[in-house]
């Protein structure tokens, strides 16, 4: 290559390059950055090269850097149309080439979201909301070709720069408002000016490419995908500052970046763009590359300078700043890769264009890497000032598997966590810093409900205690001590005093450390304490890790998340051994309503099951159902031995639902005389009148009720609080304590015009009446409004009554947001119930006081609300009328507190529920306790059972005159079960084993009767499923000790036998 001697020659060369591009030739551009290669783009390239033989003159294959969309790797873009194909395999190449040749779009490979397909890259939500500027060329230039860079007006900025004076350029950069992209955001123009104004013959500039934050890779992608843009920026900067030597400090872990940038430097040098007398301007400049060994601290400028000087990569105290005394003691200007690339763009497009983008204090665009628990992971470039919500939901596509996003960590280990309620925050230097985080180099790690914030803080602190250089005490010792305390907290050994120490220590580290690493090292800890102190308190006081992450507290997540502490891991292990009798003992130990919950539990245990990380969770509820059914079949544990009565007093339980039943059982087991009062003629509360028979056969309910009765509990039916008796009256009758658990049996009104018409019914009334075997007037065309379990139950119960021709459920969101159990929704669809999603009622139309039709409006999903669900918004003009004879409203329930007027001294919450101490469930009236739905509002059966257990404990302590205080312990199984030694063949089978599928009656067999829909698992299915359990209960210290002990014992027996 001949050296270009003047600006005109460069323009001539560029024009020649552009002329040589055939405009009719299609381009297939393959994303082949490090991440693309890791996901298989090299094999794809090979396949394309082979498949393209014969078509080379029609299609150009371009191997580019990263296209940014990690979740879609490996991907290609077809130019000129800009068609985007994702997640390709080598086998797909022939199809794509055919498509390109015939101008056809291959639908199979398009990006899909919510059922929509997106052919063009610019329409894909991930790209649509971005503002690609610095990253733009990444998707269509070959980073190894300087011609490609020249063709996109590359190296045109140095021309205008070298023709201007140094002061003019610095003024331009200052006016543009560019701030350092490495993290601290120091104004670039000012930094340049400082270095320029130093009186020194020799000055240096450095490009900082020591990118070490976990989850950040924007610098790497730029150096890999567009190295010339960084070199061009450096030439401009060097000229403005008066430096003749530049350094690129890049970590050796970035081999492709090193390779591409070295190659680019050689190309620029041989073209005369680097070296002596660049383009005849008289300005000399060259760049050297230094490969760092990967210490995080070497990203700090003084440490980086030491590292280039071949000394230990350790910072020194500033001042003096590098601009005064830097590399080899000379004035030095250090900027980050992205800053240098932005300089090129500012000179090319003008400082006014740059400053028109962004906020008042933060200008231009910024590259972020959005990773973690979000659908569309990748590298994005957005204008400063975009909200976090836009980034996470519009570009990132929201949480994985519909899970709720809790926080985002910005700025890597030096940054902080920003909670979801602050997601409207604009992304700029000041706002992030005010929220306790930093911009950093632009890593964004999204965290959801399965992320424990204490664990996150521990992770980053562990990283930092390892990466701290150790020179200054607060950073070296402080991070180690913070880690020590965090470790204690995550192991359930933490104290409140330690938490206060942690805050104090964090502030000391922040204010007294020598360099940026230490000064920001406490951010992850201080930030999580600031926004998630509750989680810290839960770990310390309640030994609870709500994300079920902290191993030493959690043991197995199934046991930890169970509201009633059922030892799922233990009984699953017993099932795997075929020891069903013992499994039943384990289940019944913590659960008097075992058969019921085995059918109607919402199984929170399964949501955190470790097996779901790689496969599907263990079907824990169905395993429990298998064991309880086994117990019934073999007549096991049908009764308990009543204990002798104590003399502490009589207790009245009001309401015979799951909360009341559980409370009565445990109190009776404690020797109390317990009487349960029930308003309805039947016992069971919501279990008897709310849950339909086809989900919970009455025979099954009866066996659990018999079990509770066997403990010596007495029942009085048809007696209603407030009408037939009062709490005062009960105390007068000699009852020493009362537990109110009357539930929520009143359906909420819809509040639309015409609701008073005949034929408008309420879900809870319909279910109650029909479950009691009485008649309800139901028309031919039935509509049900709501998306919860009671709406589905009501629809299925009406369908089974055979009175109607059609049953349709109207729900204002989509199936993904429906609160009802997924299996129930699917079953109802199978049975022929129709569901209209995104539909809300507007008014009820009646004739002669009787419902005739209902007017609905279509909805669309808008932004995420506080609950993490997308708010439905009405679509104007989409109203339609549906003819109906019966409309069942089942949107939610509230407690019926009409009896409160006579019990007016009981305090209520704003929601209209009873106000209790959440720890003890005591009301404001001594001796009266309350729990279940009457306190929580409509909630699950298992939470009601949990409330019953807590109340029983509080009442016991109250009557014994002890302090009512709950004791919290770290979760452990009461006994360890030896894991099964699998043979190789069995192991192989287990690797491919899938979650056991429940057996059902067919829709035809079930839709006209009340037979139980779910048939249960077979013994073979159950044992196989239980063997799929990963036995994570053995991963704690105690678990490991048990394994060692078992091994020792076997060893001893073997030696004895030998």
């Amino acid at each position: 290559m001949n050296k270009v001697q003047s600006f005109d020659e460069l323009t001539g060369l560029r024009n020649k390059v552009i002329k040589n591009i055939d405009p009719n030739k299609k381009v297939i551009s393959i994303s082949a950055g490090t991440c693309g290669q890791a996901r298989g783009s090299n094999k794809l390239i090979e396949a394309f090269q082979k498949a393209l033989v014969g078509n080379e003159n029609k299609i150009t294959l371009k191997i580019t850097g990263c296209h940014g969309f990690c979740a879609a790797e490996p991907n290609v873009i077809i130019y000129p149309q800009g068609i985007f194909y994702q997640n390709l395999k080598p086998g797909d190449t022939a199809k794509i080439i055919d498509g390109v040749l015939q101008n056809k779009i291959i639908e199979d490979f398009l990006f899909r979201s919510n059922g929509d397909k997106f052919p063009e890259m610019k329409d894909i939500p991930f790209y649509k909301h971005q503002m690609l500027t610095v990253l733009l060329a990444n998707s269509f230039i070959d980073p190894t070709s300087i011609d490609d860079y020249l063709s996109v007006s590359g190296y045109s900025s140095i021309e205008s720069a070298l023709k201007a004076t140094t002061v003019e350029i610095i003024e331009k950069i200052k006016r543009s408002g560019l701030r350092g992209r490495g993290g601290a955001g120091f104004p670039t123009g000012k930094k340049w000016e400082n270095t320029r104004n130093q009186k020194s013959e020799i000055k240096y500039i450095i490009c900082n490419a020591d990118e070490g934050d976990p989850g950040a890779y924007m610098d790497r992608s730029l150096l890999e995908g567009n190295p010339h843009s960084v070199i061009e920026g450096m030439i401009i900067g060097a000229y403005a500052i008066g430096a003749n030597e530049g350094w690129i400090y890049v970590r050796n872990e970035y081999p492709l970046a090193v390779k591409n940038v070295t190659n680019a430097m050689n190309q620029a040098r041989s073209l005369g763009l680097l070296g002596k007398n660049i383009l005849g301007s008289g300005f000399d400049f060259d760049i050297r590359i230094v490969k760092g060994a990967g210490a995080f601290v070497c990203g700090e400028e003084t440490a980086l300078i030491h590292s280039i000087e071949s000394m230990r990569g350790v910072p020194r105290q500033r001042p003096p700043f590098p601009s005064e005394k830097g590399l080899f003691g000379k004035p030095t200007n250090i900027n980050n890769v992205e800053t240098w690339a932005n300089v090129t763009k500012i000179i090319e497009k003008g400082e006014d264009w740059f400053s028109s983008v962004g906020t008042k204090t933060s200008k231009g665009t910024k590259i972020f890497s959005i990773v973690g628990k979000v659908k569309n992971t990748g590298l994005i470039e957005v204008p400063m000032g975009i909200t976090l919500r836009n980034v996470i939901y519009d570009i990132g596509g929201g949480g994985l598997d519909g899970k709720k996003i809790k926080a985002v960590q910005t700025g890597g280990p030096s940054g902080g966590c920003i909670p979801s309620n602050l997601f409207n925050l604009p992304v700029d230097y000041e706002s992030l810093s005010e929220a306790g985080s930093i911009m950093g180099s632009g890593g964004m790690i999204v965290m959801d409900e399965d992320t424990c914030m204490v664990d996150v803080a521990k992770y980053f602190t562990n990283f930092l205690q390892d990466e701290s250089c150790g020179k200054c005490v607060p950073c070296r010792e402080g991070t180690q001590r913070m880690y020590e305390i965090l470790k204690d907290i995550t192991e359930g050994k933490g104290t409140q005093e330690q938490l206060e120490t942690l805050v104090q220590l964090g502030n000391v580290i922040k204010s007294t450390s020598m360099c940026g690493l230490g000064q920001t090292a406490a951010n992850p800890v201080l930030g999580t304490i600031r926004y998630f102190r509750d989680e810290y308190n839960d770990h310390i006081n309640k030994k609870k890790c709500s994300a079920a992450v902290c191993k030493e507290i959690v043991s197995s997540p199934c046991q930890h998340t169970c509201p009633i502490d059922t030892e799922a891991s233990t009984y699953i292990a017993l099932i795997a051994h075929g020891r069903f009798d013992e499994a039943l003992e384990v289940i019944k130990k913590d659960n008097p309503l075992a058969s019921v919950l085995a059918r109607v539990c919402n199984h929170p245990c399964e949501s955190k099951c470790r097996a779901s990380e790689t496969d599907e969770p263990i079907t824990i509820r169905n395993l429990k159902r298998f064991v309880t059914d086994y117990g019934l079949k073999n007549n096991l544990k049908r009764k308990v031995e009543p204990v002798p009565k104590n003399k502490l007093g009589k207790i009245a339980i009001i309401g015979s639902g799951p909360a009341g039943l559980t409370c009565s059982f445990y109190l009776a087991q404690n020797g109390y005389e317990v009487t349960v009062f029930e308003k309805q003629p039947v016992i069971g509360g919501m279990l008897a009148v709310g849950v339909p028979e086809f989900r919970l056969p009455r025979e099954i309910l009866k066996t659990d009720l018999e079990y509770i009765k066997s403990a010596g509990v007495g029942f009085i039916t048809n007696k209603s609080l407030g009408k037939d008796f009062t709490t005062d009256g009960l105390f007068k009758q000699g009852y020493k304590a009362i537990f109110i658990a009357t539930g929520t049996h009143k359906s909420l009104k819809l509040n639309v015009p015409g609701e008073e018409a005949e034929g408008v019914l309420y879900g809870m009334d319909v279910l109650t009446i029909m479950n009691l075997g009485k008649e309800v007037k139901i028309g031919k065309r039935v509509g049900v409004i709501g998306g919860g379990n009671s709406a589905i139950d009501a629809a299925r119960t009406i369908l089974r009554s055979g009175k109607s021709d059609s049953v349709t459920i109207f729900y204002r969101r989509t199936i993904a947001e429906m609160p009802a159990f997924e299996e129930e929704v699917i079953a109802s669809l199978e049975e022929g119930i129709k569901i209209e999603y995104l539909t809300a009622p507007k008014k009820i139309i009646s004739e002669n006081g009787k419902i005739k039709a209902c007017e609905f409006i279509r909805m669309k999903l808008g932004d995420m609300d506080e609950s993490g669900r997308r708010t439905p918004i009405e679509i104007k003009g989409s109203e339609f009328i549906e003819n109906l004879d019966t409309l069942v409203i089942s949107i939610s329930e509230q407690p019926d507190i009409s009896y409160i007027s006579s019990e007016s001294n009981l305090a209520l919450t704003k929601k209209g529920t009873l106000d209790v101490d959440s720890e003890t469930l005591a009301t404001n009236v001594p001796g009266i306790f309350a729990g279940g739905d009457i306190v929580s509002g409509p909630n699950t059966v298992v939470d009601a059972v949990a409330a019953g257990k807590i109340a029983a404990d509080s009442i016991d302590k109250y009557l014994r005159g002890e302090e009512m205080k709950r004791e919290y312990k770290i979760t452990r199984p009461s006994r360890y079960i030896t894991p099964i030694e699998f043979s190789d063949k069995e192991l192989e089978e287990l690797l491919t084993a899938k979650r056991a599928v429940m057996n059902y009656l067919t829709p035809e067999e079930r839709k006209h009767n009340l037979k139980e829909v779910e048939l249960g698992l077979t013994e073979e299915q159950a044992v196989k499923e239980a063997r799929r359990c990963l036995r994570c209960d053995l991963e704690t210290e105690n678990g490991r000790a048990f394994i060692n002990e078992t091994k020792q014992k076997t060893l001893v027996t073997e030696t004895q036998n030998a």
Partner: protein
Amino acid sequence: MPDIKIDGILIDAPRDWTILDAARFLGLEIPTLCHHDGLSEWGGCRLCIVEIGDKLNPIIVTSCTYPVQEGLVVRTATKKIIETRKVILELLIAQCPTSKTLQDLAAKMGLTRVRFKPKWEDCIYCGLCVRMCEEQMMASAIGFVDRGNKLRINTPFNKTSEICRRCGGCIYICPVCMARCEGVKPEDVICGRCQNSLQPTCIEFYDNYTCWEGLKGDCGTCVKEKTEIK
């Protein structure tokens, strides 16, 4: 020569002085550990921190490295600075409770508790020995190895050094090796406070140790004042 103000006292300090130089010239006591007049500045122990700038928005800097500048305002002993120094010293003592240098500082600074598990290490990585060896003995036989929680001081590759002349300079200057505290017990890592001095109480009232005389509570007036206010 730049005019600077330390604890309210104006001083015309030579250009090449640090804040520590100026403060010591005035007789103001600032605790130091890794600083030594005969060695280059290190800035690692952070005990010599002082506050500079606006009182409402102060910046904490190490006085041993910070050069004097025209118009600089320095506060050497505010409540925040003293509390912060105590935490740093607490970290150091927890690391190496057997250092008499540290125990004496604890007694002087009124540190009475250590909340962290003692590590019983024999080094606090102040770097005095490394600088002594390199700058005064011209040997560079020892240096820092590794980083963070694995940091240690050693000869290259943990081999007996051929450069070392056994001069003992490193041991001489070490705040741990020669000055051993024998009094410290595992149950309480703060020892008998043999260097204990009067703990002035003026800080509670003025957010600052410094009195009119430039002393730090030694006159006892403030203590008296406190009793009167009570």
